[in-house]
């Protein structure tokens, strides 16, 4: 911890906007939260495209959305809508995780 102490001691005025260190354990916890969020979202990514649109489409086609068979609709429409949502959810959740561990890239 010597370098960390030295660092914060040398720059007391730097405050929130200055350079700062995070501990290795905090870094690992941050990365783990990122990976599990990613895992969940990629699971949904797989489920709506490869799952609903290809592997289970015959099963889903017994249901319909409007007049379109559901599996077919997922392959040509639904998967795309979910993809858009996934990216914005990731962006929002990731920002929260980054702030929690003080590694975000917000100005000031």
């Amino acid at each position, binding site marked *: 911890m010597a370098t960390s102490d030295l660092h914060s001691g040398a720059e007391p005025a730097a405050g929130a906007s200055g350079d700062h260190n995070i501990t290795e354990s905090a*870094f690992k916890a941050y990365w783990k939260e990122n990976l599990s969020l990613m895992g969940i979202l990629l699971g949904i990514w797989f489920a709506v495209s490869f799952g609903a649109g*290809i592997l289970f489409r015959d099963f889903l086609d017994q249901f319909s959305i409007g007049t379109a068979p559901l599996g077919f609709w997922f392959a040509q429409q639904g998967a795309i809508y979910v993809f858009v949502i996934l990216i914005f959810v990731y962006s929002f959740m990731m920002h929260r995780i980054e702030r929690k561990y003080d590694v975000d*890239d917000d100005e000031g």
Partner: protein
Amino acid sequence: MESTILGMTPTVFWTAFFVISTFGLYIGIAVWARAATTDDFYVAGHDIHPVFNGMATAADWMSAASFLSMAGLIAFMGYDGSVFLMGWTGGYVLLALLLAPYLRKFGKFTVPDFVGDRYYSQAARIVAVICALFISFTYIAGQMRGTGIAFSNFLGVPIEMGVIIGAIIVLFYAVLGGMKGVTYTQVAQYCVLIFAFTVPAIFLSMQITGTPIPQLGFIGTTTEGVPLLANLDRTLTDLGFTSYLQGQKSMLDMTAITLALMVGTAGLPHVIIRFFTVPKASDARKSAGWALIFIAILYTTAPAVAVFARANFIETVNESTYSIDVARGEAEAADQGDGATPQWFYNWERTGLLGFTDKNGDGQIQYRADAETNEVTTLDRDIFVLANPEIGNLPGWVIGLVVAGGLAAALSTAAGLLMVISSAVSHDLCRKVLFKNMTDTQELLVARFAAVGAVLVAIYAGINPPGFVAAVVAFAFGLAAASFFPVIFLGIFWKRMNKEGAIASMVVGLSITAAYIVHFKIGFSSAVLGACALIVAAVLMILHFGLKGESDTRPMFFGSLALFGVFLLGAFGVLPDIAPGTTDQWILGISPEGFGAVGMVIAMATAIVTSLATAAPPREVQDLVEEIRIPSAKAHVSHGPAE
């Protein structure tokens, strides 16, 4: 028949009007956004707002093929066409979650920059440069060809002339403005192309389903209250066509193609570099989201247009009465009574995109699956987008807008590719490998000359398209999936990945995928074998000069000379001709388009096995990986007193 404006038919006049005015707009933007520094030239000064970058990415991404051909392709393929819809959008999720923010935090100019630094190896950098150049050249030749065809179909300009005009426009704003000019032009091009695509789609949807929103019309009923999709499916099967709702491809092949297109999208260098232009890592994520929204507007409209257009084609053209008088321009289709062939059919027949042969001599058009009885002898898939304004009874200027939209799509993609080629040559090859003491000014000059050189090659390839242009989808996406994606992904998420793993992964992934595609799409003829030898010879020669002084490169030098000999043998036809593979020989029934997914898995496995068998990467590289995992530039990981 129609009044003329300035001696031209209204369609030609409005096409010329929109093409010339949008080109003027692009040039104006380029003059305004001139690039002065290498930062401006390569990454637009890292200063593009995420929403604008999203728009630019969408234009960069959507090529002439997405704009003009995709709806038609889906109209013919039905469910099988879903691979393009999911594949070309799902890649953005991978990009946003796995690659873009980390590459932005890394903060350099190009993809080979990342590969070279992360794998502390000039050889890895050189292999990456070659991959980037090969992928981008394949792709740009197709765009140039598309530009030429659009010009020749609508303005009566020869294809060669069209290719040259398009190339000069792109060259102008790419050389002058660099990435900054390209970005703002792409924003304008996105607006042109999305407007040109959605307006006719809305009118078509109104006419066929009674709702202005194509995405709702897609799941709705026709104006007569019949379910749209089920009705089309039944009509098609009655005429002997394959079912619209049931695919022909196997489940495994569908999965492989979709995966290859997704991973390939995330690994395409011209898409990745767009995310270097935003200010911060978190902006890269947001920007990928915006890009996908802008892309999704077109990609969710296209399958609806596909259904509307094919249903309408059968409804109005099949069994309609064809009039020779209208074909000669001596009468109007509207005066021919009920059941007459619509006017737009005659208009497009003149361009050669549609053709009718009255095989049974009954004066009516029979549209059938069976080639013996089918009388629609030419049916270009682009017709399903191009004819929409007329089918929807829109004024003549809308067609002009659609052509301008198609050109915007082709030019914006060509410009993005040009930036990759230019930076790969000037920055990665010249500055980082061959002439390490170049100044910024010299590098900028080389970048501009490289862009000019690349355009000349693209013009040549657009006029004399080499065989592989037809297989552009398989090549560009398959190779990106099997070469770039594994090394970038593992480089970020696995600290233990080392340079031996990276080089082996790229070489193995690229060669296996390329070999499979060439074998099934082109065939290893003597000339093709010679061309392959020439490419490898060039790579070895660059490695020899680039690695001089680092290690003993004489084997590379002599290997290169030997391969050059093989090239000469191939060029003179001395090597054996191996016949192209047939579809029943596909491994596990996986098509060349889907093989990129297999190549990627093999590349990943190679990377992991090779890395574990060789020494771990040095400490500073592992620290670099930690750095790029943290978005903040000011937070650092402390490793305790041991350091």
